[in-house]
């Protein structure tokens, strides 16, 4: 499902462009740099996956686009996020509100806690129509029911009047999708949309996102820790580790020929690449040994060095920089895995 057209990087076809994004959090232990210079571009109509373990900064990156980072603790310290010809980071709060839920929407990991437990689900969808389309109650209700039907809820008229605890987890995520897609956004950000769901439901939700994507001509960013889940539907992949992008590339290239040892490890952690894991039964996978480094005390060299099977001396002393190695393809490693002469397994 890869895009066949050769990409060009004029802003006309660019859905969103993130340039050198830095996000810091104030913690008890000091300033924590959660995102350290992240850049990527997404073409119009593409589906992009940001992949990484928890703590990699992928969710913070997504929240930064929406500017939903808790102001009390987090701060976007520098960077640019270009959407629709303007830098989102320069917009005032009023303009941002116009944009959220309208041109850019987001769905979250926990469909249970992401819906207001005291509000009928129909009203939670209707709220978006009333906010952005300025329609009256009756019209909002009509549009909401239509939207609930579109995301595959049976008997949407009845569901409209139900509360979140009365419907299943999969249905709740469908409601979240209905909320997000109500105003036909140009960009949908899905933060681990299937992680909290049953394996059998996961595929359905991804299919739904995919269907609505082609119908609405929107671009999609999926945040995930599990490459396998999204393998079938993504066009382009950004791999993140310890707040940085370590590899980017078209999905097929990344899967067939990962260049960064971390990407390779992530792929090896996926059961039967290319197939969605629809069953709970998983074969024994290669796990990535070790843990993400403490962002408060980052090593001098490569952040992945300690867990890397290919690490050399230089890796612990000097941090590699991002190198462009092809069309929209780049990698941050001293020893690109594709350059066979340079890698020695430990």
């Amino acid at each position, binding site marked *: 499902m890869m895009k066949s057209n050769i990409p060009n990087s004029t802003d006309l076809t660019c859905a969103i462009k993130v340039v050198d994004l830095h996000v810091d959090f104030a913690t*008890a232990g000091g300033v924590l740099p959660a995102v350290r210079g992240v850049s990527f571009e997404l073409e119009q109509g593409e589906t992009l996956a940001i992949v990484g373990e*928890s703590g990699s*900064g992928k969710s913070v990156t997504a929240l930064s686009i929406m500017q939903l980072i808790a102001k009390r603790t987090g701060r976007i310290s520098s960077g640019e996020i270009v959407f629709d010809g303007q830098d989102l980071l320069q917009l005032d709060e009023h303009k941002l509100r116009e944009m959220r839920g309208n041109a850019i929407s987001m769905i979250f990991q926990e469909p249970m806690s992401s819906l207001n437990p005291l509000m009928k689900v129909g009203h939670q969808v209707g709220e978006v129509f009333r906010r952005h389309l300025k329609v009256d109650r009756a019209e909002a209700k009509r549009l909401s029911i239509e939207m609930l039907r579109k995301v595959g809820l049976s008997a949407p008229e009845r569901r409209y009047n139900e509360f979140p605890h009365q419907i299943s987890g999969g249905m709740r995520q469908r409601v979240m999708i209905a909320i997000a897609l109500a105003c036909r956004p140009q960009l949908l950000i899905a933060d681990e949309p299937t992680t909290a769901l049953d394996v059998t439901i996961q595929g359905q939700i991804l299919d739904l996102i995919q269907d609505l994507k082609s119908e609405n001509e929107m671009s999609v960013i999926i945040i995930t820790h599990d490459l396998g889940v999204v393998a079938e539907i993504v066009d382009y992949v950004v791999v993140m580790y310890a707040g940085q992008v370590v590899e980017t590339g078209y999905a097929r290239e990344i899967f067939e020929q990962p260049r960064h040892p971390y990407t390779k490890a992530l792929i090896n952690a996926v059961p039967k690449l290319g197939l969605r894991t629809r069953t709970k039964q998983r074969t024994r996978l290669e796990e990535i040994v070790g843990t993400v480094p403490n962002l408060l005390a980052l090593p001098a060299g490569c952040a992945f060095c300690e867990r890397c099977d290919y690490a050399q001396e230089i890796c612990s002393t000097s941090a590699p920089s991002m190198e462009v190695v092809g069309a929209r393809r780049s990698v941050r490693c001293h020893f690109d895995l594709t350059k066979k002469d340079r890698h020695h397994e430990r």
Partner: protein
Amino acid sequence: MMLKSIFAHKNLMFGGTIVVLVVLMAIAAPLLAPFDPVFDADLMNSEMPPGGEFLFGTDTNGRDVLSRVIHGARISLSVGLVTQILNTIIGVSLGLVAGYMGRFWDDLIMGLTNIMLSIPVIVFALAIMAALGPGLINLFIALGLTNWAYTCRITRAQVLSDKKKDYVKAAKSLGYSRASIMFTQIMPNILGPVLVIATLGSAEAILLEAALSFLGLGAQPPTPSWGGMLSSARDLLFVAPWLSIFPGIAIFVTVLGFNMLGDGLRDLLDPKSVGATKLGGVR
């Protein structure tokens, strides 16, 4: 987040300091107090405003208010200590009985506990006062018998959860007695929460003693109890306001100390309530 953890320690430090100072004041009362709180009465010095020889002024009988406030710490602290020891013993014992005996005893005790929880402590204390009559000793009894419900619940819950654990079963099969299991397994686990409850309970008991003594149901004159002093000062409020000011400050500061100490201990022992420095949700 950082602010919060400092704040938790601030509570502990600040509250702890106040409590220690009040305790020292109570112990060293005869040394600190310039006069005897009861017998140094001189009608010639009646109702002298603060200043000079009498830093906090004198009362109707010419007694030094400062000396009476210092000695009052003894009564308030005894109230805190005695009532919380009584409440803790009752609460832990009933909790153990309910947890171990189960069935009828469990139902009975938990029913009683729920009733105790469903009635304000002051109402129960008043009922006991009504039965026993006014007086400081009766007040001790009333406050010592009425605030054990939380301790009882926690103890029972701990027994029930420990009953299921393998090491307790193992200890039992090895022939350890119930008593030794109780003291080695249950007690260490409930120590923290019980301490917090007792500290916060002390604050409540000191406030209640003051209130009931103020109503005339507790310490009777000339006993230097803060609540009792406020009670006899009431009619003189507009004439000799200092009689109402200083004992009130003493109660306020002491209760504040116990409350802050209790909050601080809770935050220390139960990191969850401090909202432990988590980066959850931001990743």
